[in-house]
C-alpha cells in the first residue's frame, strides 16, 4: 500500500493569500472577523475584500475578474500558488483535483443581476470551471459533506493514493460568506455577535468566515512532507443538526484513527464555539483518553469557513509540525466544557511529531485524520 504525503499548500483568506502570510498573521494573534453589514444586518464575520481579491486575481492570472465568481477567483488563486511551487503535471492521468465545498456559488441565488451564468450554482460546474483553468485531464471529483467536506476530501485523497490510482492529488476546500449562510445560521441562533470563543465558558456561538485552501497530496515523500497516517469518518446517527450528547461519531473516528493507541502530540479540534459542539468534542476526546493532550481551535482567528475549514486547518497542522509550533486557541479564557481540556493558551515552540485533526458537521457527520512529520 502506498503512503500519502502533504506537500505544498496555500490559504486564501482575509488574513493573507499565502500559507506564510496566514501562519505569520495567526502567530501574531491577528483575527479575521470584523463587523460587516449584509442586507441591512450587521454580522461579525471574516470576509475577503472584493477589491483586493480582484486586484490580485488580475495580477496573477491576467483574466477578467467579471467572468468568475468570488469563490472561483479564490480557488484559482489558491491552486495557482500550489502549482507555482511544484513540478507536478496537471495533464497527467495520474493527477486528480478534488474540490470540497458546502455551498459553492450560493451567492448566485441572491444576485440576479450577476453576469455569471446561473448554471454555475451547480457545484460540479464550479469545479469544472476551476479545473479547466489549469487544464487537468481528469474530470474533478466534488465532495460536499457539510463541515467535514474538506477533511473528508483529504481522507478520500489518501485512500486513492494508497490504492495507487494516482501520483498527485490537489485538494481544494472553499466556501464564501453569503446572506444565505449568515441568515441561516442566524435563524438557528448559532451566530456570535463578537469574535467567537471556542471551548470558553462564555462562548455564544460561531462566526462565519470565508477562505479557499489547497494542498498537494502525493505518494512521494519529499523534504518537509507530512504523512497522512490514517483518516476516517463516522456518523452519530443521532440528530441532523445537533451534535451527539455522547460524542459517538467523533469517538468512533478517534478509535479508528489512533490505531496503535499512541496519543498525538497535539490536537487541532473543530471547536466552533457553539455550546453543544464544543461540549460534544470534550466528551469524545475524554472517551478516547485524550483530555490531557494539548488542543486548539482556529475558529477564533478565521471563524467557521465551512467546506474550507478541514483543508485550511490541516494546512496549519502541517505548518505547526514543520515549524514545531503550537498555536494558541484564541478566545479561550476559562474552561467551559463538562470535561476539562488542555487548551493551548499561548502560541509556543514545541517539538511535535504527530497531530490529530478533527471535524464534525450537520447530518451527524464526523471525521478525523492523524498527521505525522517524518
Amino acid at each position, binding site marked *: 500500500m502506498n503512503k500519502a504525503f502533504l506537500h505544498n499548500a496555500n490559504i486564501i483568506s482575509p488574513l493573507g493569500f499565502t500559507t506564510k502570510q496566514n501562519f505569520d498573521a495567526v502567530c501574531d494573534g491577528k483575527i479575521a472577523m470584523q463587523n460587516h453589514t449584509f442586507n441591512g444586518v450587521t454580522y461579525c464575520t471574516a470576509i475577503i475584500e472584493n477589491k483586493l481579491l480582484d486586484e490580485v486575481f488580475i495580477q496573477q492570472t491576467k483574466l477578467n475578474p467579471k467572468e468568475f465568481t468570488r469563490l472561483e477567483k479564490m480557488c484559482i488563486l489558491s491552486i495557482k500558488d500550489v502549482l507555482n511551487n511544484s513540478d507536478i503535471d496537471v495533464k497527467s492521468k495520474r493527477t486528480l483535483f478534488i474540490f470540497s465545498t458546502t455551498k459553492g456559488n450560493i451567492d448566485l441565488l441572491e444576485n440576479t443581476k450577476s453576469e455569471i451564468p446561473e448554471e454555475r450554482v*451547480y457545484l460540479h460546474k464550479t469545479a469544472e470551471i476551476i479545473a479547466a483553468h489549469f487544464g487537468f485531464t481528469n474530470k474533478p471529483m466534488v465532495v460536499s459533506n457539510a463541515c467535514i467536506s474538506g477533511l473528508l476530501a483529504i481522507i478520500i485523497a489518501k485512500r486513492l493514493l494508497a490504492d495507487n490510482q494516482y501520483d498527485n492529488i490537489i485538494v481544494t476546500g472553499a466556501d464564501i460568506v453569503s446572506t*444565505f449562510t449568515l441568515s441561516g445560521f442566524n*435563524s438557528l441562533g448559532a451566530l456570535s455577535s463578537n469574535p467567537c470563543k471556542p471551548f470558553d465558558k462564555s462562548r455564544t456561538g460561531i462566526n462565519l468566515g470565508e477562505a479557499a485552501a489547497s494542498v498537494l497530496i502525493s505518494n512521494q515523500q519529499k523534504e518537509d512532507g507530512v504523512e497522512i497516517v490514517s483518516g476516517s*469518518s*463516522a456518523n452519530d*446517527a443521532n440528530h441532523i443538526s445537533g451534535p451527539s450528547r455522547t460524542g459517538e461519531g467523533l469517538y468512533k473516528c478517534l478509535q479508528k484513527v489512533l490505531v496503535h493507541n499512541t496519543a498525538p502530540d497535539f490536537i487541532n479540534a473543530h471547536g466552533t464555539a457553539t455550546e453543544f459542539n464544543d461540549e460534544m468534542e470534550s466528551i469524545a476526546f475524554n472517551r478516547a483518553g485524550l483530555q490531557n493532550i494539548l488542543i486548539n481551535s482556529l475558529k477564533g482567528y478565521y471563524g467557521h469557513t465551512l467546506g474550507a475549514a478541514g483543508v485550511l486547518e490541516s494546512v496549519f497542522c502541517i505548518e505547526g509540525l514543520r515549524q514545531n509550533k503550537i498555536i494558541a486557541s484564541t478566545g479561550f479564557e476559562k474552561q467551559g466544557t463538562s470535561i476539562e481540556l488542555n487548551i493551548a493558551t499561548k502560541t509556543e515552540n514545541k517539538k511535535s511529531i504527530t497531530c490529530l485533526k478533527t471535524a464534525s458537521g450537520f447530518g451527524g457527520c464526523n471525521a478525523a485524520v492523524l498527521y505525522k512529520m517524518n
Partner: protein
Amino acid sequence: MSNYILSYTKIKNNCLWHNDKLVSKIGETDNFLEETYKSLDLAYPKFFKMDALSKLGVLCAEQILTDESIRLLPKEKIAVVLSNKNSSLQTDVAYAKTMRDFPSPSLFVYTLPNIVTGEIAIKHKITGENAFFIEPTFNADLLHNYTELLLQESEAVLCGWLSIDEKTCDGFLYFVGKQTESNQKKINFIKHNPTNITQLYTN
C-alpha cells in the same frame, strides 16, 4: 474476496421498486413521496418534516435496510456513499425565498446534500463512513471505485444516486457487501462492478 450487490431499490416514474419487484405505484399526484410513505405504513412522523431529497433517500433505504440478512450486520461497519447532480438546490431555492423576511430554520438545516445521509443513519442507527459526491450524471465508476476502497475496512456500503428537481424524482440505492452464511441462500448475487451497477440503474 468478491463483493456483491445484495439488494437495491429504485424510485422512478411514481413507482418504487425493490430488487425488480414493484413495491408501490402511485397514480397522478403532486405528492408522490408522501403518498408512497403512506402506502408503506412506515409510522415515522418525522418523515413529513424532511425535505424532498431526504424523503426520497429514506424511502429508498427503507426496503434495503429492513431486510433481515442486512439488519443483523454491525451498524458501525456500514458506510453510506451517496451522489447527485443538484446537491440540495431545490431546498436551497426554497430557503432563499424565506431568507429576506423570515428565514426558516427548518428549511435551512436541509440545505446540505448529506442531510439525507444523516436521516438514513438516524432511522437505521448506521454509524459507519460517509461521503457525498456531486456529479453531473450518474457515475457508476466513481461509486464502484470508492465503495471498493471502503470495503477494505467496512463490512458493507449503502450507495447510490438521489436526485430531485421540480420535474423529476430519481432515486437508486443499492447495498454492497460480502457473501455470508445468513444471506447466501436468500440472495440472487450480482457481482459488484460498474457494468452491473449501470444496468440496474438504467433498467
